[in-house]
């Protein structure tokens, strides 16, 4: 892709970029700069006076045991969600590839959950597992499981992880199917002739060749679990019981909009912004590299 496009008019390229730049400026740079400013200020309860406090908000946030708890919750939640979503999507994709009749139908059905809004997905799982009226809660209790995600930390975490992962399975499934299709059939046939059994072919040929896809999905899923699961958590647990499912993003919302600690909330947003930048850098550095087959 050599040869740069040369515009005859000096102004035209800037004009063509203007709409996107305007959107980014209004919806990202402006609020981001506001957050940066606010993260160094403290406001009185009535919003009458703001004082500049430097890095005091950051120091306080990072020393807060609640914040550190939230970091831990986020780490557990993100890893569990990413792992579960990947671990369930891969076998589904492998199975869907083996279907002979009605391949398209299976794929369509498996992709549907992705179209469900996070809050709705949360509600679905909440209704199924609500201790008072959920069908599955009834079944679980009938089988001797003391099911109560409203009181038990582990169960609440399990529920939000399941709801968040369920939605992401479709996305992963789609990429795994594409990844599997990119593996030339003759490689699998060559491995079969080379004496590798089905499971061995998967382990030694298919899985290594899917590695770029898997790594890409791992990053994307982690980013998803970090930032796009607010709706699920808000619908299912609201960060409870206690603070057992309060992720970093949920805590920003809780501290800022519910508890009105604007300075602290802004400082947390700025830290999250740093995390996003880091994850994006990883994505660009490693994931954008394409692997060539053959």
């Amino acid at each position, binding site marked *: 892709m050599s040869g740069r496009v040369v515009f005859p008019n000096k102004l035209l390229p800037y004009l063509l970029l203007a709409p996107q730049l305007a959107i980014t400026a209004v919806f990202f740079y402006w609020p981001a700069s506001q957050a940066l400013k606010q993260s160094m200020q403290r406001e009185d309860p009535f919003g009458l006076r703001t004082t500049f406090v430097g890095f005091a908000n950051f120091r306080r946030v990072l020393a807060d045991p609640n914040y550190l708890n939230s970091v831990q919750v986020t780490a557990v939640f993100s890893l569990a969600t990413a792992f579960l979503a990947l671990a369930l999507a891969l076998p589904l994709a492998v199975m869907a590839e083996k279907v002979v009749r009605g391949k398209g139908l299976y794929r369509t059905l498996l992709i549907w959950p992705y179209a469900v809004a996070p809050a709705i997905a949360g509600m679905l799982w909440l209704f199924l597992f609500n201790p008072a009226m959920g069908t599955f809660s009834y079944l679980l209790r009938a089988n001797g499981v003391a099911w109560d995600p409203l009181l038990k930390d582990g169960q609440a975490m399990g529920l939000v992880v399941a709801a968040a992962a369920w939605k992401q399975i479709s996305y992963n499934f789609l990429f795994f199917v594409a990844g599997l299709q990119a593996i*030339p059939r003759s490689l699998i046939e060559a491995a*079969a002739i080379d*004496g*590798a059994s089905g499971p061995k072919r998967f382990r030694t040929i298919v899985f290594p060749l899917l590695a770029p896809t898997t790594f890409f999905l791992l990053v994307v899923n982690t980013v998803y679990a970090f930032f796009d699961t607010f709706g699920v958590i808000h619908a299912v647990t609201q960060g409870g019981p206690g603070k057992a499912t309060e992720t970093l993003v949920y805590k920003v919302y809780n501290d800022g909009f519910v508890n009105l600690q604007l300075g602290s909330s802004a400082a947390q947003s700025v830290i999250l912004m740093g995390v996003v930048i880091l994850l994006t850098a990883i994505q660009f550095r490693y994931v954008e590299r394409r692997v060539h087959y053959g």
Partner: protein
Amino acid sequence: MAEVDLKAVRKRYPNGLEAVKGVSIAIPDKALCVLVGPSGCGKSTLLRMVAGLETISEGEISIGDRMVNQVSPTDRDIAMVFQNYALYPHMKVYDNMAYGLRNRGTPRAEIDRRVREAAATLELGHLLDRRPRELSGGQRQRVAMGRAIVRQPKVFLFDEPLSNLDAKLRGQMRVEIKRLQRELGVTSLYVTHDQLEAMTLADLLVVMNAGEVEQAGDPLEIYEKPASLFVAGFIGAPPMNLVDPASAELVGPIPAGAATLGFRPEDAILDGFASEGGLKIRAILDGVEPVGAESYLHAHAPAGGARMIVRTAGRARMEPGTALEIRAPAEKLHWFDAAGRRI
């Protein structure tokens, strides 16, 4: 050490298409059998059935004394060289070659010895630590060959292994494949659409068309006595000239039921070189194709317009539009009936 025996093998797809319509071939031990035919003639399907990659709808395939219809490709003790080589992109050359041996639980030292030996035979020794994407097309082809020979299988299967190489390399590899196959003495089945490759490699040549065997036998015998119009037109480059006997002057008897008359470009003699008996046909020159040592004259008959090619030695300097008188001796004529069978 194994004969490969195909008995009335058929392949029918669920949609009703019949790709292979009852093919019987007996490949003797240590022979190289070449399946040749135009694309879609069922030759690759047949090869894949021998490999176990396609199910057999009807008939029997045996390798050695064992009927293998229900045996998986893993257990058939065969090795295959694919058209796109199918090298494992994430493994080094060494591991590509060792993979099949490892899967069969061969001891480490034995694997190492065999891989190095095969690499030496194929001059791959310095490439063992490379990955397939770091190799040229010819080198990849050699690795694919190496992967087949380290296994020391009963049968080699080749699926158009040279079609991705340039002409010069293809010529070299052709010779090398023949040499290796002779040395190792492994029964081989080789699929190609290139009739030159087929002619030069085959001990047993099988010409296929539309899922059926048109003719099988010694390559030169097939060249001398093509059993049908299809074989006559397919084997030999440039192909045999096929004309309507009515459009030619003939000296000597015409066989009963003859509908088409064929003669090879190299058997044609141009006007001026007299010949006893045989065929004489008028034609108009369309153009001259000089290829160096010889030239091909392309011409068409004024009546019926049948196209013909005549080979002449050296360089022919003639203008398009020149009237020619093409002759061919009686013993070099091939006669075919209305159904296209040789008379």
